[in-house]
């Protein structure tokens, strides 16, 4: 039996908007639109998409760093409480170095959540910090150093330790390895897997790299132009994608196995966010698009067990 630890319903984030002094409406850009998802306890939920698809905006809303324009977030069944920012859901940033204050020592960075969220005393903090450093595989003598003295991989371990400090059970990982070299990326991915098992964590793992997501995720959502276009258990999604965009992503990823990539013929351009098309945002690039794809937006509809896609003419529809 799975329990939902985080439920998001119809999250929308719009930037801009409102009216100028003279009353003319300002342009609105919807970075995320009507995204609903559920995180089950103990799973890793992957979100895949290319730049500009809204995946980071979504992640920031889920931990409370940014307020949704519309929609609700419930954590463990209760509406999200802004006063609990950081206590229930934590965040690991893409750029490990810029997420650490250059003027604070590692100790000071790790102490902050223990003081402000856990209200631990001095001795308890010291013990907990040593425990965290050990958990992420860093030597205790790093504690008195400053962030610029660390490599990207080490800095990301510090960022992970900071996220673990508050004992939040939900961790949103926003491209946690994309700034890292492949050998360091492997170290961090392994560390994340170990920590998840050790502390019973639930991950939302955001990445542009399908292969990384496949390696870590139980379920995967694919985002395009601010919306989820397909969602399925990882093995199903990678084996039998229904949405042509998922197919294109899979075909485009170059693999070490030497499989030839298939780039698609249409120019890879996103629609103008200031004038979004009325129909499917992917239609212009889609080899299977028909007239009605451009006329109305396909809803995210169930296509099989736990599998849904937003496409009028899905691929592999027979199975």
């Amino acid at each position, binding site marked *: 039996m799975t329990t939902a630890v985080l439920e998001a319903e119809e999250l929308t984030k719009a930037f801009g908007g409102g009216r100028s002094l003279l009353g003319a409406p300002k342009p609105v850009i919807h970075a995320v639109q009507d995204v609903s998802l559920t995180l089950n306890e103990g799973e890793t939920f992957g979100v895949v998409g290319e730049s500009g698809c809204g995946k980071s905006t979504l992640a920031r809303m889920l931990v409370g760093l940014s307020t949704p324009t519309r929609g609700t977030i419930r954590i463990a069944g209760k509406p999200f409480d802004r006063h609990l920012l950081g206590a229930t859901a934590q965040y690991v940033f893409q750029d490990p170095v810029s997420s650490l204050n250059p003027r604070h020592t590692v100790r000071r960075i790790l102490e902050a959540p223990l003081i*402000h969220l856990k209200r631990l005393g001095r001795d308890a903090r010291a013990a907990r910090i040593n425990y965290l450093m050990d958990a992420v595989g860093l030597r205790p003598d790093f504690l008195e150093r400053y962030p610029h003295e660390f490599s990207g991989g080490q800095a990301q371990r510090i960022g992970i330790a900071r996220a673990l400090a508050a004992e939040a059970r939900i961790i949103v990982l926003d491209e946690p390895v994309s700034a890292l070299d492949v050998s360091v990326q492997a170290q961090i991915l392994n560390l994340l897997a170990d920590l998840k098992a050790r502390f019973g964590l639930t991950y939302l793992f955001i990445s542009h*790299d399908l292969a990384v997501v496949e390696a870590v995720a139980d379920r995967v959502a694919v985002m395009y132009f601010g919306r989820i276009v397909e969602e399925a258990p990882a093995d199903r999604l990678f084996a039998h994608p229904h949405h042509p965009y998922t197919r294109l992503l899979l075909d*485009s990823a170059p693999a*070490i196995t030497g499989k030839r990539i298939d780039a698609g013929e249409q120019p890879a351009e996103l629609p103008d966010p200031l004038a979004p098309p009325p129909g499917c945002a992917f239609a212009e690039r889609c080899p299977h698009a028909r007239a009605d794809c451009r006329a109305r937006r396909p809803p995210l509809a169930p296509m099989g067990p736990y599998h849904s896609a937003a496409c009028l003419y899905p691929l592999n529809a027979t199975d």
Partner: protein
Amino acid sequence: MTSAAGIAPPAEAPPPARSAWRLILRNRLAAAGLVVLASIILLALVTPLLPLHPPNATAPANRLLPPFSDGHLLGTDHLGRDILARLMWGTRLSLAVGISATFIAALIGSVIGILAGYTGGRTDNTMMRGIDMLMAFPYILLALAIVAVLGPGLFNALIAVAIVNIPFFARNIRGATVGIVHREFIDAARLSGKGRLRILAADVLPNVLPVIVITMSTTVGWMILETAGLSFLGLGSQPPQADLGSMLGEGRRLLMNAPHVSYLPGLVIFLIVMSINLLGDGVRDALDPRLRAGALARPAPMTAIDRTDMGTDVAPVDAPLSVDHLTTQFRLGSDTHHAVNEVSLSLGRGECLGVIGESGSGKSVTALSLAALVASPPGVIAGGRVLLHGSDLLSKSARELRKVRGRDVAYIFQDPLSTLHPQFTVGDQLVEAIRAHRHMSRAAAWAEAVRLLDLVRIPNPRGRARAYPHELSGGMRQRVGIAMALANAPEIIVADEPTTALDVTVQAQVLDLMDELRRDRDTAVLFITHDFGVVTQICDRVAVMYAGRIVETGPTRQVLEDPAHPYTRKLIDCVPVLGSGRRRFDAISGLPPAANRLPRGCAFAERCELADAACRAGPIAMHEIAAGRQARCVRPLAGTS
């Protein structure tokens, strides 16, 4: 992986106060400024204790004595007052007023700036509109207006000068604050449960403080000049009290017959302001991370070449390009970073050679060294040869090399947004590339540019030629980059991570295009990348780099399927492969060695499970392990049979 230097010094080292002081003192001009300023301040402080004439005691009998008169070292003014005494008391006053005005302006301006920058939104907007309004006045008009309201007087001048400078501080500090507030560590602090005030005090303020100090140190001299100016106009200190400005103002009327009465106070003002400015520049250089380590040194037209060895091998006759023991270093002060160490490779006609490695492996520096494009300083090519059909590019003059660049060897760079000039249309930039090597009318070159854009499959090439780079998508921009490289049908193209900045679907199209074009035109490509997947798509052969050396080379399929060097093996095991489901990775423990502290032996030995004493003893040579395959390992994993 992003910039040419590869080993740029850490972008933002927080300078501990002590090292900042040391940096200031090491700067000779700043130290001189500090000494002069400290002496003047000291003299001003002890002035009341010195045996001087009373500054305001008039003696009409001794009017306008020249300097070095008896009892009046610097002479007297029109009322017979001792100029030395008046100068010292005036200096005291000018310094006090100038420095107070600076502190007042800095305090109020910083508070406004930080509040506006931190709060953002409407508060920010309102505050900055007000500041803009104040800045719409030429500063002295505002000062004059304030003095007009308050009436002339030194204290009023101080207030006027302080108010006039508040907008300047507010703007600067707001800019710095906005830069900090949008950094991720502020989000991290919020997630650590810190309240807004605590974040302001503990996270924002310490990072803004250097900017405040820099702004103060660069404006205090200016403030002293301004208060002196108001006094000079008679709107500051009122007789008999005199600061340096009003002394100068009074002396002006005696310019013809007693010039010393005016030029002495002016000289003192000049000395004070000059010493402050010297010191201020030193402070700025010490606190601004961008200016450290000569970061603003102008790169020379070609990399400095200081070769101790000239390579050994004879060039293979059939290879258009062969690189022989190329060694490139970054010399930062007494520290030498060995970015590229004795790299040898050759590129056959129409061949695509991939150079793969992680950040800091020296792959990009190798690519840039070929046409001496490594920024210099700090880059130096310290050895080896780059042979283009047997002639050494590194022995050419900058003028001769210019003719090779873009005609025989062309480049495609990583991020097309920063590598295309933002203020020229893409058509203009293509025309320039064409006309750099071919005598062609502008119109003909423009037609050629449009043809090139069409060649790289940019829709509506005629229209797009008139677009600026920022008006194109990332994929389109990189197509322009490719078109530019093809402009003169070069024999060799060096592509330095050309698809790294692109999304995967765009990357696929760009790779497709490159592969097709190079085959059609029989162009040799040196393809730099960190991505094994990309290598398999486009490269015939691959060279793996680690710590500035090539550790393995061979045909792509063979190297990837059956790697010989343990590093290659382990690196491939780290790569996530689509279609292999959930998995753990066989990660490589540890980190590569620092480029300024390379070990004598195999650089990978510390991370290699198979390493023993022989690996660490000394340099390992490249061994031929099979036809066309080499590895830099004493016990390679493959090809030994």
